[in-house]
């Protein structure tokens, strides 16, 4: 028994000294292997699992507590060795306000210097959850949400990382999304609105097919992203999150883009076209009145009479159009101010500023209307001033032809009415233009509210499944206890064995999910627990009361191994005259149990007492 204990101690010491060649340094290679297709051990990718969560092994019937690894996002440090072959809980402290933590990881063992790769140019941001860092991380991310908790406080996050390979270096990439304060969001939305305004102005039509509409979303999203600034991300789940499928946002996007913005914009374009035509058409009718020399001379003649002059002077603005300068007349037609630099109403984006044009049209329309009223009142042959006008004609102050011309212009459907109509049309156009501009602006306002942004912080962290001296012993060496059957000996013998694997083995990893020959096969060296010495003294123990087993084992289940090999013992010569003993071997088969798991198997230890 003392030799047995000595053997176990030796095995343990031996495993401590073992250091695999692979652990001496990083292998070199041009590419890192992506992990996107790695099985998830039945634990949903991205699920948040409490620390006490456990994974069960349907093959071995064992229940394994999930291991925890802590990362410090500030320093990027993972200070402990990462477990391999088993899922583990990666924990850290999320910054204040964090609403989401995305974790991606990459085997960088074969990358130069085993470092995290740098950003690749030309990658499309919609391809992955982290638009700012398009690296070959693979498609799947582990995601953490503060379910039911206030994201305003610092909080620990945790994600379950699927099993990793042993003796590898990994780069972990963390994208932490956080809420932004209202001021920042409002400021950004104004920028986004300006981008939308610019973008929609480039669209020639509201006739859209599905590919065009999708493309519109992509282009608009990119233009908005262009003004995001560093450390910011379009909020996930919005119409501008290109990871959200088009069909999911199509209705909302078209309502916002077409019904709210594009329709008003196209209506405005139509109206602008009408305005440009109508303001030109207004010039000639206005000029007809303004250039009516007869009317001008009539007005001048009327001033020769004190009474008539008094009537004219009561409303001098009504006479503005008569003899109006051509330059000002053009401004009337366009709704411009009579002096100062002209403004292009078709480019104005402020509906109130456009409405000012409408006010000018109304004002001039009213002036022309009063001109008609004034001339009809003064020149009516049956009116109150008919006698005075006749006297002016009689005294040669007024020519009858001029009087007839002025009366014709002031008549219903005459030149003044045509001038009024001519002004009313562009006036109606700018009124609509003002409404349509306001409607479009409201559409942009509504659209910009659909833009959400979050703060984005990214951090990289290195970790390794390469163990240190203290952990390697468990990777390659295990101890077991079992019963062997030696064929020539013809009996059972309990033994203690030490098993040497050819690749790292995590005994926490269920064989049913992380199996394979290299995780099952081992070389075995052991000693018998009891003496195999026979009564005839033809067979003797190799050392004291123990013999040695040398063979190989194969794990059938998590803790059960079958083995075969040779039992080494001393054989006494059959010649009774000879007393010497020689080394002999007897083939054996064995069934053993991992000693680590032995405590879980009730009663097995009694075999060794």
């Amino acid at each position: 028994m003392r030799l047995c204990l000595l053997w176990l101690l030796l095995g343990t010491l031996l495993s401590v000294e073992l250091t695999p060649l692979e652990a001496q340094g990083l292998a070199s290679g041009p590419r890192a292997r992506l992990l996107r297709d790695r099985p998830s051990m039945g634990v949903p990718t991205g699920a948040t699992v409490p620390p006490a969560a456990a994974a069960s092994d349907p093959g071995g019937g064992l229940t394994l507590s999930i291991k925890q690894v802590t990362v410090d996002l500030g320093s990027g440090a993972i200070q402990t060795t990462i477990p391999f072959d088993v899922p583990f809980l990666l924990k850290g402290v999320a910054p204040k306000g964090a609403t989401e933590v995305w974790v991606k990881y990459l085997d960088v063992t074969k990358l130069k210097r085993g470092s995290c790769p740098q950003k690749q140019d030309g990658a499309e941001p919609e391809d992955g959850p982290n638009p700012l860092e398009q690296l070959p991380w693979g498609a799947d991310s582990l995601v953490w949400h503060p379910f039911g908790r206030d994201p305003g406080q610092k909080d620990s996050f945790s994600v379950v990382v699927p099993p990793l390979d042993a003796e590898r270096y990994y780069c972990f990439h963390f994208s932490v999304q956080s809420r932004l304060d209202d001021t920042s969001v409002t400021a950004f939305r104004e920028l986004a609105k300006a981008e939308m305004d610019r973008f929609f102005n480039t669209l020639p039509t509201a006739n859209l097919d599905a590919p065009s509409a999708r493309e519109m979303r992509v282009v608009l999203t990119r233009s908005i992203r262009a003004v995001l600034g560093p450390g910011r991300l379009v909020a996930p789940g919005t119409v501008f999150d290109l990871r959200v499928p088009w069909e999911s946002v199509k209705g909302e996007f078209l309502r916002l883009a077409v019904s709210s913005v594009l329709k008003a914009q196209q209506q405005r374009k139509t109206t602008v076209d009408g305005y440009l035509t109508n303001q030109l058409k207004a010039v000639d009718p206005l000029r007809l009145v303004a250039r009516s020399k007869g009317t001008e001379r009539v007005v001048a003649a009327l001033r020769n009479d004190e009474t008539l002059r008094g009537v004219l002077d009561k409303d001098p603005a009504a006479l503005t159009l008569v003899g109006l300068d051509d330059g000002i007349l053009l401004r009337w037609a366009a709704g411009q101010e009579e002096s100062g630099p002209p403004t292009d109403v078709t480019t104005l984006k402020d509906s109130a500023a456009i409405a000012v044009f409408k006010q000018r049209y109304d004002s001039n329309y009213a002036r022309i209307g009063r001109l008609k009223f004034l001339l009809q009142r003064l020149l009516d042959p049956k009116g109150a001033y008919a006698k005075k006008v006749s006297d002016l004609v009689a005294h040669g102050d007024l020519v009858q032809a001029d009087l007839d011309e002025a009366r014709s212009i002031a008549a219903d459907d005459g030149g003044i009415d045509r001038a009024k109509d001519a002004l009313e049309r562009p006036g109606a156009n700018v009124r609509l233009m003002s409404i349509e501009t306001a409607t479009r602006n409201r559409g942009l306002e509504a659209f910009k509210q659909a833009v959400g942004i979050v703060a984005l912080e990214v951090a990289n962290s290195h970790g390794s499944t390469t163990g240190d001296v203290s952990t390697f012993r468990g990777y390659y060496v295990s101890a077991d206890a079992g019963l062997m059957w030696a064929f020539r000996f013809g009996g059972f013998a309990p033994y203690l064995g030490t098993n040497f694997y050819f690749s790292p083995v995590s005994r926490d990893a269920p064989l049913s999910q992380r199996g394979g020959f290299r995780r099952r096969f081992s070389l075995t060296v052991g000693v018998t627990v009891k003496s195999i010495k026979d009564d005839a003294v033809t067979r003797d123990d190799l050392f004291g009361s123990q013999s040695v087993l040398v063979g190989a084992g194969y794990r059938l289940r998590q803790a059960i191994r079958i083995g075969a090999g040779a039992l080494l013992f001393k054989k006494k010569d059959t010649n009774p005259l000879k007393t010497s003993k020689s080394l002999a071997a007897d083939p054996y088969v064995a069934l053993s149990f991992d000693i680590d798991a032995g405590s879980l198997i009730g009663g097995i230890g009694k075999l060794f007492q």
Partner: protein
Amino acid sequence: MGILIEKDLEAVPDTLTVPGSTELRHELRSSRASEVAQVEYALDPDHDIYFLEGGQYTKTIPAEAVTVTHAPTPVRRSVTLACQTPPSSIVSVEIVETMSDESGDHEHSMCTVLVR
């Protein structure tokens, strides 16, 4: 004389599955006491959405006479939109309206319809 647009054209409802009907609504007024305007509607010839009028697919609804007064006059017209060779990839169409007054001058308006 002249036809003036008081309210832009709109389609109610403005989202429909084709074939489907919608009502085109707007308000016109005349610069005079009353006049007759000719109103017609058209779709872009380059897409596959049509008006379905009397069982015929057409890109234009011919001019119809509408009496417009000096007071804002509501003008309504029901139309059916359909795709001649479904399914259509069109998601949004413009309906353009042209109004001609008695002097032959034209005014235009338009609206959009989202097609599911």
